[in-house]
């Protein structure tokens, strides 16, 4: 059905509001994490159980797949509406009981509780510090359903802009909101919007950057798959405010489900008259295309991304001229991260003052973080900007697992930085993180414990960035392999005295001379770890890895005072190098040890520790 006017949209909305809601619903999480732990099989089993119980009509009781519910660690998750209960670790064989007892019976199943302490999702510690704005509809609507989106207030911003605000006021609201780009640098959105508005030349293009290339980050994927219409509405409102004719959503090649869901939502919006020519009969047209990337990290850079959409290799260019003046096909182009676009409808509908109520003065609003690594509760967390790093890592995340110590948190993807424990008090905002030598990036936070080696981490990121270098400029193409070679030598026991200083020099040169933003920041893994963990570099120069990660560069020793004789290290050892029976503290037989690190990871009592090798340098057998 095609809506021909705002009145028809309002009538449809009223009709949806009056249609009876089911008495109870199960939302099976269809987020990236839960899908990886078997949520689709759970959902099919729930559907089959509904059919068996004669509830397939979905009138009184129903079950649906939702967007990401957040607490991926405990997946597959199922949320119960209206009670707000959250189940975790649900298996397909739980479906019959789930449907009979909970869905139709309204009884809580203790054995499936996502958290042993509380039933309601909102009182679980993971959710307590959160403020869900961008993720508000996750677990409230079916991601691909336009009617669900409309019933939940979706397209309210477009309706308001077309009927009351007009393009000028819609623009003004975004400009005054203080929204900063959610994709990396935190550039003020209002400045970009004004630049496009004042740019000469037609047509004007809008781009949503969904090329979430940072490994360890999945908030953009969760958004494109959990509430794709919020991105589409944001761009449509933007097109109206800025007079743009055409838009593109550039999606990472590795995210086929995002492409599928965005495409189906674009079709639904076109068929309903909310996208395409003459939107809601107001004479305003906007076409939107979904473009799939080709698997290149550099395409997250704005000029590389536009080159890729044009059908060329994704290589960046020097930004003498801003994309807002000459971007896609040399025409004025506004490029924002998908999360930035998803903020636009809220801002336009509720006004800039509402938006500024959350977050801090220079960093208003919320940000979605993906919290992963060595932390007890991993998942997607949306916090007001300015919340402390600690509230994310220790609050929502519950800290590092028992028996381990927090060492560092890495933020901002490969080109971000590693921050030490003192950073837990830092506010999560664009400026504070940049000041500490890291960056917000798109919001990926990776927690590292005492078993993570920072030199190895820098080597890992440098290897990644070196492999992804597009090859256009020499500092990045040639400089990264040099840095990588030294880092590899360091982690494999071949370091030379003075390597640390050499690395620092090389990294600074790269940062000063690379062509694009990604090349400049490719030095960050080295520079930020040097800044906060220089001691580890110097230890590696001397052949010692305190984390027990680099082979041959330490010797595990059991502290007899701390050892509880549980034998876990012995079980984990693949080389039979741990001696001791029953109640005795265990001992490491140095001659047999292959320094694989399995015993270090197996101990829950911090009794097995990495020590310097008695001979001083690295193990001659491995180095």
């Amino acid at each position, binding site marked *: 059905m095609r809506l021909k006017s705002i009145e028809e949209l309002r009538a449809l909305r009223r009709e949806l509001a009056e249609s009876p809601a089911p008495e109870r619903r199960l939302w099976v999480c269809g987020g*990236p994490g839960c*899908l990886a732990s078997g949520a689709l099989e759970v959902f099919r089993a729930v559907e089959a159980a509904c059919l068996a119980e004669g509830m397939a009509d979905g009138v009184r009781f129903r079950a649906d797949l939702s967007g990401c519910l957040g607490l*991926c660690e405990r997946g597959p998750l199922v949320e119960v509406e209206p009670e707000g209960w959250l189940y975790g670790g649900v298996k397909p064989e739980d479906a019959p009981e789930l449907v009979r007892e909970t869905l139709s019976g309204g009884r809580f199943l203790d054995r499936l509780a996502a958290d042993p302490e509380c039933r309601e999702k909102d009182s679980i510690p993971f959710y307590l510090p959160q403020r869900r704005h961008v993720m508000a509809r996750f677990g409230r609507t079916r991601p691909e359903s336009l009617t669900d989106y409309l019933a939940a207030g979706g397209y309210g911003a477009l309706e308001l802009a077309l009927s009351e605000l007009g393009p000028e006021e819609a623009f003004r609201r975004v400009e005054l909101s203080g929204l900063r780009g959610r994709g990396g640098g935190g550039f003020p959105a209002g400045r970009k919007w004004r630049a496009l508005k004042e740019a000469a030349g037609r047509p004007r293009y809008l781009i949503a950057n969904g090329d979430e290339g940072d*490994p360890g980050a999945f908030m953009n994927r969760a958004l494109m798959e959990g509430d794709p219409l919020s991105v589409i509405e944001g761009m449509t409102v933007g097109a109206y405010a800025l007079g743009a004719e055409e838009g593109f959503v550039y999606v990472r090649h590795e995210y086929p489900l995002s492409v599928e869901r965005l495409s189906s939502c674009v079709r639904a919006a076109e068929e309903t008259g909310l996208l395409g020519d003459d939107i809601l009969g107001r004479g305003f047209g906007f076409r939107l295309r979904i473009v799939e990337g*080709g698997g290149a990290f550099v395409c997250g850079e704005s000029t590389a991304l536009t080159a890729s959409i044009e*059908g060329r290799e994704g290589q960046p260019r020097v930004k003498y001229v801003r994309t807002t003046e000459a971007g896609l096909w040399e025409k004025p182009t506004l490029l924002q991260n998908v999360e930035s676009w998803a903020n636009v409808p809220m801002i336009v509908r509720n006004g800039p003052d509402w938006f500024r109520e959350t977050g801090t003065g220079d960093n208003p609003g919320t940000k979605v973080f993906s919290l992963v690594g060595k932390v007890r509760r*991993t998942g997607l967390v949306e916090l007001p900007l300015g919340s402390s790093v600690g509230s994310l890592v220790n609050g929502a995340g519950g800290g590092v697992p028992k028996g381990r110590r927090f060492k560092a948190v890495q933020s901002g*993807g490969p080109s971000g930085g590693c921050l030490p424990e003192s950073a837990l008090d830092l506010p999560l905002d664009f400026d504070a993180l940049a000041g500490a030598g890291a960056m917000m990036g798109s919001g990926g936070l990776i927690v590292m414990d005492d078993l*993570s080696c920072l030199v190895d981490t820098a080597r890992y990121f440098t290897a990644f960035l070196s492999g992804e270098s597009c090859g256009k400029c020499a500092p990045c193409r040639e400089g990264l392999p040099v840095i990588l070679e030294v880092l590899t030598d360091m982690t494999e026991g071949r370091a030379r005295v003075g390597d640390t200083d050499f690395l620092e020099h090389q990294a600074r040169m790269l940062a000063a001379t690379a062509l694009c933003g990604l090349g400049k920041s490719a030095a960050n893994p080295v520079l930020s770890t040097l800044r906060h963990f220089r001691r580890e570099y110097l230890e590696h120069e001397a052949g010692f890895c305190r984390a027990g990660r680099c082979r041959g560069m330490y010797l595990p020793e059991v502290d007899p005072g701390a050892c509880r004789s549980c034998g876990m290290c012995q079980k984990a050892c693949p080389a039979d190098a741990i001696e001791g029976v029953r109640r005795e503290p265990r001992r490491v037989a140095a001659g047999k040890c292959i320094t694989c690190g399995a015993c270090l990871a197996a101990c829950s009592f911090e009794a097995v520790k990495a020590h310097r090798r008695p001979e001083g340098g690295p193990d001659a057998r491995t180095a």
Partner: protein
Amino acid sequence: MAAPDMTALPGILESRPPEPNELLPLLTLIQGRWRCLPEEALKAVSKRLAIPLARVYAVASFYKALSFAPKGERLVQVCCGTACHLKGSQAVVGALEKSLGVKLGGTRGDGKVTLEPVNCVGACALAPVVMLDGAVRGKVTGAAAAGLAV
């Protein structure tokens, strides 16, 4: 090897408008159909979009999702993203190389399976992660990977 059956090519070419910016989408479709980019297809794309063959090759060789050498019938991808690296993706790679009988980045001699690294599939909370023909499996231990035979 026998020449690939190219009868599906015209249909694929005509499924997209003949515009230069359709180059990457077309190459992706061709890669999906033949698991590689046959020379004949590249020439046809060059003609259809009226762009030089050199540019077709430039784009074809730039993007990691595209390959000239045929990939295996089954595709096993090990995530080597940050979270997976921290949680031991190297051990998973080692186990898979053994159980599948192919080195990372290679295709087994019989053409049945390709094992390749992928930078991140966005399921980091379930690290380490392996994708089997696009289906993600989370929390893969070395032992589980060792049992994966294709």
